[in-house]
């Protein structure tokens, strides 16, 4: 069927295709969420390399195959579309064989081969065959894998343990849940070339706050009452210092956190990690919201990412559909009026897990992938 173009002022621009995530639904390593915000490419971080593509941007871990989709916005659904990639030493088409023609869902697979400084790759959708006119382009950044270690602490506070939603609190059972969470976290971070490995898991117990010598205020809970000097930061600090392992990210699973929060991260360089090691706290309550995605969000904070939708004065200042797709968005408190705000590609009322690659000048909390990789490099050097 013909596509109708209503031409005003005697000119009209047609952009036949764009690139998008291959599926909707929960995050997985095969189907990353590209940074398809706008067609302008913004300034790339140092050493990333640049192409002349104008469109979406994606990160791929070297050696990884990922799936993407061509969205036919202004071209016939039956037009033969082929995928080509360049340069051949950085990237290859894994499926379909010969790059096309794309069929059905218009998905294709590409494999990142190696991370080379100042070089990146380009994916092109072509009409007709592999030498046909280029309809649209995607820029790919291929990243060498950086592996960060996690030590999980399952903490009992004044006799009330973290259960991670289980009836049993055996170390093996808790560790298995933590490993499953980390698997999802790794799928989310795969486009940034970062992987977390559970190095150790421990059952820890604490009753009193060392700094005050007084018991934790509420059994099972890390409290934070700013007006009460004995509680204030001190319970947070006590948890962060508990049996802390060196050369790893310490993740403390507790039953509850102040204010009914799902998670909390003491970021290096902030007041929460001033006199104690940095770390992450995850509550049992986070199981209701997706504890794996909460962990991914808090690890983002640990690696220096802020909430992108937060100003000095107001917690949630931006609720557009792109913001809702971001891992670091403060999801729990967001209105979801239009249906496309309720489901941003991950399912109804499921928070997005996108990590931005582009760096739009007026958004001071952008370019998350570059921040993560820089901080991961520093973390590995510590």
């Amino acid at each position, binding site marked *: 069927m013909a596509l109708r*173009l209503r031409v005003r002022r005697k000119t009209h621009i047609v952009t036949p295709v764009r690139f998008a995530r291959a599926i909707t639904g929960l995050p997985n390593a095969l189907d990353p969420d590209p940074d398809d915000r706008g067609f302008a490419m913004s300034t790339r971080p140092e050493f990333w390399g640049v192409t002349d593509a*104008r469109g979406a941007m994606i990160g791929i871990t070297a050696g990884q195959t990922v799936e993407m989709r061509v969205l036919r916005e202004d071209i016939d659904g039956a037009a033969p579309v082929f995928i080509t990639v360049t340069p051949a030493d950085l990237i290859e088409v894994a499926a379909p064989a010969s790059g096309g023609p794309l069929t059905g869902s218009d998905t294709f697979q590409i494999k990142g081969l190696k991370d080379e400084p100042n070089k990146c790759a380009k994916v092109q959708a072509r009409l007709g065959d592999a030498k046909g006119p280029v309809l649209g*382009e995607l820029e790919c950044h291929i990243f060498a894998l950086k592996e960060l270690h996690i030590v999980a602490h399952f903490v009992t506070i004044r006799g009330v343990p973290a259960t991670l939603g289980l009836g049993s609190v055996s170390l093996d059972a808790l560790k298995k849940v933590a490993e499953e969470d980390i698997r999802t976290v790794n799928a989310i971070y795969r486009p940034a070339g970062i992987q977390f490995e559970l190095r150790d898991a421990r059952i820890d117990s604490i009753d009193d706050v060392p700094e005050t010598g007084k018991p934790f205020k509420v059994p099972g809970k890390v409290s934070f009452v700013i007006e009460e000097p004995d509680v204030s930061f001190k319970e947070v600090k006590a948890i962060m210092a508990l049996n802390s392992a060196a050369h790893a990210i310490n993740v403390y699973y507790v039953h509850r956190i102040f204010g009914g929060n799902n998670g909390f991260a003491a970021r290096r360089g902030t007041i929460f990690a001033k006199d104690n090691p940095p770390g992450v706290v995850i509550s049992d309550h986070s199981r209701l919201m997706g504890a794996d995605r909460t962990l991914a969000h808090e690890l983002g904070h640990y690696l220096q990412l802020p909430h992108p939708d937060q100003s000095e004065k107001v917690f949630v200042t931006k609720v557009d559909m792109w913001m809702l797709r971001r891992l670091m968005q403060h999801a729990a408190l967001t209105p979801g009026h239009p249906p496309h705000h309720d489901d941003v590609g991950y399912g109804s009322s499921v928070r997005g897990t996108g990590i931005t690659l582009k760096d739009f000048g007026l958004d001071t909390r952008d370019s998350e992938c570059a921040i993560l990789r820089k901080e991961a490099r520093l973390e590995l050097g510590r």
Partner: protein
Amino acid sequence: MTTAAVSRLALESALFNTLNVVTVTVFFQKSPGKPKSGARGIASLQFQVKNDGQVVQTGKTGANGKIEVRVSGGKATVELLHNNEPVSTYEILVDDGPFDPVDKQTGKEPALRHVGIQQRLRHLGYQLGRGGSDDDGVAAAVPAPGPDRKAPPDPESEADPDDQKDDKKSTERAKKNLKSAAYDDLTAGTERSLLDFQADEDGIRVSGVVDAGALTNLDDDDRAELEANRKKTLERLVQIVGE
């Protein structure tokens, strides 16, 4: 090559053929926006133009992806070809009317409130999805807004008096959180293309907001900033496309 159908006339006939043909320019591009260089154009597209089912033009696009389409009687068909076979067909309708006003048309049904913005974005090649009388996303039906999204309740926390004052700001912030109906009358395609446009234009903050007045609980400074950004977005859109 360009041809036009005419009637044969008798020698010295007082009758004549009138070629009521206008030429419009369609740019095929890899990304939207006014062509600032050849880099955006889709080169080497083989095409043919038909009027009333007759092929009247054939050719191949240059670096800027431009096709000068000769339109007879307000309509023409452009076909993209591969191996001389049509693979994608476009019905060209010439519209001499003005764009709708760019400001939100409050009082109209949701689908018609942002038609002026949609027409301009579409003119620039931004993709609005489907729906509407031309099935190009302009004036597409807007789904009914859903309820507020809320975090699952935590009975333990709700029963804990400390959690009501723990981190006092948390409670205050929750009350102050942005409440927004600003996006309720936008389709997904319209919001996305508006965001795309803002991201593509230097000096505009990416917010997707076309109605800062519908955002409640914002600090005055934040509201003023968003409102200024909204105005700048619309002004830029008008500046690029025209009224």
